[in-house]
């Protein structure tokens, strides 16, 4: 495994090669309705491969809604309706013939609050590979679990207690366990819905470090409330406001020289 150790850069400058990287996700005029409510309005955006894209904006701006469109988690809400097109590697994920289960195997998700299954640490990570039949044998499965835990930099902390319940870990460890769980099904994309909002600053720092490490292998989208966090971990940033994608670009550009006044107002703390 190419577990290259990155030097910790709190503010990662957007490197030029990122901008020219291949497009992983392409959204075209995506609209989301919750019953009568028009929650997301005509969003079109390209997400580059193997980079961290941050969605920022005040609460209720539609950033989480958009995130949940990318692995069709909105399907679980009966009144939600999605129009438009989202392509992952040129595959239309809203194609009726597509099996949503396979989509979600490719697009992992980490939630706002750590939500490990009330099972052992091992079982938490092993569940995904098991239902997808990724392991041919017990040894295979064990290897996947160990690798995933290592990638989520949790291995050293839990290797002695793989049979302990996952819910017994600390908040930050739980969130990293959830990341390990997501990694275990070898997704190409990892969606993170405010993954640090329930964590203390030290745990947050560790997760951010982890995200930075993971971007070498995964396309990551992170929804965050914290502009500092967006600035620290992402290469590209999209700003949402009232269901509209206001601006999208290099993180550095968005934070230093936004083109839209609303973005400027938001990052300077006028509202939000």
């Amino acid at each position, binding site marked *: 495994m190419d577990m290259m150790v990155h030097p910790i850069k709190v503010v990662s400058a957007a490197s030029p090669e990122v901008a020219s990287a291949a497009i992983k996700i392409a959204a075209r005029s995506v609209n989301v309705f919750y019953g009568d409510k028009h929650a997301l309005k005509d969003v079109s955006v390209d997400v580059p491969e193997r980079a961290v894209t941050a969605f920022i904006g005040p609460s209720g701006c539609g950033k989480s809604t958009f995130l949940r469109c990318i692995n069709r988690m909105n399907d679980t809400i009966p009144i939600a309706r999605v129009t438009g097109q989202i392509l992952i590697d040129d595959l239309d994920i809203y194609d009726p013939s597509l099996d949503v289960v396979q989509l979600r195997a490719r697009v992992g998700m980490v*939630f706002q609050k750590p939500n490990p299954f009330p099972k052992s640490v091992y079982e938490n990570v092993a569940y995904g590979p098991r239902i997808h039949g990724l392991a041919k044998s017990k040894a295979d499965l064990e290897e996947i679990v160990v690798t995933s835990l290592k990638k989520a930099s949790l291995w050293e902390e839990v290797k002695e207690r793989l049979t302990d319940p996952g819910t017994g870990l600390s908040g930050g460890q739980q969130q990293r366990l959830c990341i390990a769980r997501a990694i275990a099904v070898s997704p190409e994309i990892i969606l993170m819905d405010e993954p640090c909002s329930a964590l203390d600053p030290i745990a947050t720092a560790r997760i951010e470090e982890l995200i930075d490490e993971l971007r070498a292998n995964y396309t990551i989208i992170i929804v965050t409330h914290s502009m500092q966090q967006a600035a620290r971990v992402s290469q590209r940033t999209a700003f949402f406001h009232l269901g509209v994608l206001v601006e999208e670009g290099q993180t550095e550009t968005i934070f230093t020289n936004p083109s839209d006044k609303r973005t400027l107002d938001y990052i300077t703390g006028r509202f939000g």
Partner: protein
Amino acid sequence: MTDVALAAAARTRVARDTAAEARVRARYRAEWRFRMYGLLAIALTGVFLVIVLTDVLRKGLPAFTQYHLNLEVNVDPAEIDPQNTRDPGVIRAGDFHALVRSALRGIFPEVSERAVRRRLDALLSSGASDALRDRVVSDPSLIGTSARVPVLISADADLYFKGLGTNIDRRDGRGAATPTGTIGEISITSTANDFSPDLTYIKLTISIRARDLRAEAERFRRSLRTVEARRGELESSLAAARNANDAARIAAAESALKPVLGDQETLTSRASEAENRAAELQARLDRVDSQETLEDTQPSVLVAINGGLVKVKQLGNARIDGEVLLPLSSESEAAPGAWQIITYITPEANRRAGDREVTWLERLKQMGLVEAGFNWRFFSAGDSREPELAGIRGALTGSALTLLVTLLICLPLGVGAAIYLEEFAIKNRVTEVIEVNINNLAAVPSIVFGLLGLAVFLNFIGLPRSAPIVGGLVLALLVLPTIIIAARAALKAVPPSIKEAALGVGASHQQAVFHHVLPLAIPGILTGTIIGMAHALGETAPLLMIGMVAFIVEVPTSVTDAGTVLPVQIYLWSDLPEIGFQAKTAAAIIVLLGFLFVMNGAAIYLRRRFERRW
């Protein structure tokens, strides 16, 4: 009260004037009263519960012990195995009851008269020889020897030892008493007025009885006056109707008059009967006579003398005439203090055991032949017409089979329905109809489910009557709403984040539900299921409808055998007139409540043990 008064006093400082102060105080009094109503309501509920439970316990606990005689029985080969085959089948068919009977007769050799002997035999239960039979069948070498075995006694005899007999008062004779014979009708004369207290006591009971009869007669007369007034009314309306020649009204009045006339007749005869009896007794009381004839409505007086017992028929101050119940050893004079006057205070007519039976039982007890033991038979026997033989094994097995059917049907159905409604149902008309329907079904009277069972399962589908399978089906439908509601609550209590997590790693909706949500809801579902099963275990009415009320001695062995269940057995026994069954009923209730407490306790334990705060 003082607390409230103090609190009120402390608060009045804020009040502006005395009128306001008084108002505040009145308000606090009202507050206190209101609070007391609440406490009273709760206390009353608690008292109700305590009364019900103690009443059942008091009535039922005696039924868990059973008295039996420990008799030395001569196992006569002639009655058991005359051909000396030693074949268990032959032995089993032997007349063991005759052996036991003759063993008992051997203790009271003086009983020779047929009618009296029959009364002695009646002390034994019809299952008296069961223990002997079992022992001899398992050990044929006992044939020809004698064996000491427990012998079951009749329910009346059993109840006598359990204190439903009579208080017995004993007093030593002060004078020297001389009997005129040893058996049959004899007289006993004492040198002192030993019997005068009894005579006074008997006179007293007569006067009380006369007073009661007069009061009763007065009550009848009172009712009679009302009836007569009603008759007058009806007759005048009848006359009016006749005048008007209105056939319908005439018919109505006549039909109304008929029962009134009947009532009048009965009441008149009952009143005069009571009056006559009262007058008779009064005459006896007024007679200046130191003799009194004892009747079975008065306490029985007996004399124990020279090792025998005499039942008094004519009572004088110093002399009695009576009948020998236990033969005397001699006619010799008994010294003061060497003989006793015994009173069975409950009149013989109000007792299940007559004076003879009491005498025999007391004698058996003196001989140390009476023993009490735990009533295992109650748990090992099926139903019976004899209270002392009846047990709840059949009912328990029936209940178990019925509940098994219920569980097998309603657990999968209930959980399936709950999962569908909670996880997969799309909000539409059909779903709404199902939900409303489940809520309403939970409140449909249980007897209506019985009608469903009768019309659909018995008459339409043609399943066997009285069978646990039908009972189980009906109860399953009955508790289905309970289980669905409990299972839905349990599923709803699982936080959605768990399901999301599963979906997030690519589990399908059903995989998320069956792998994660359902396992976490299992304790809640189990709790609800146990409570539903407890409800089913106590349910009676619908099972009456499908014929589970038949008298069935055999213990059912399959779900299609005819059987009954515990609550229905309770209902059946409670309807029987024998007093022995009252205790059995209460004992069966104790068993039922015991099961329910265990089940509910298990439910509470599960709830506490697996209660999870998310």
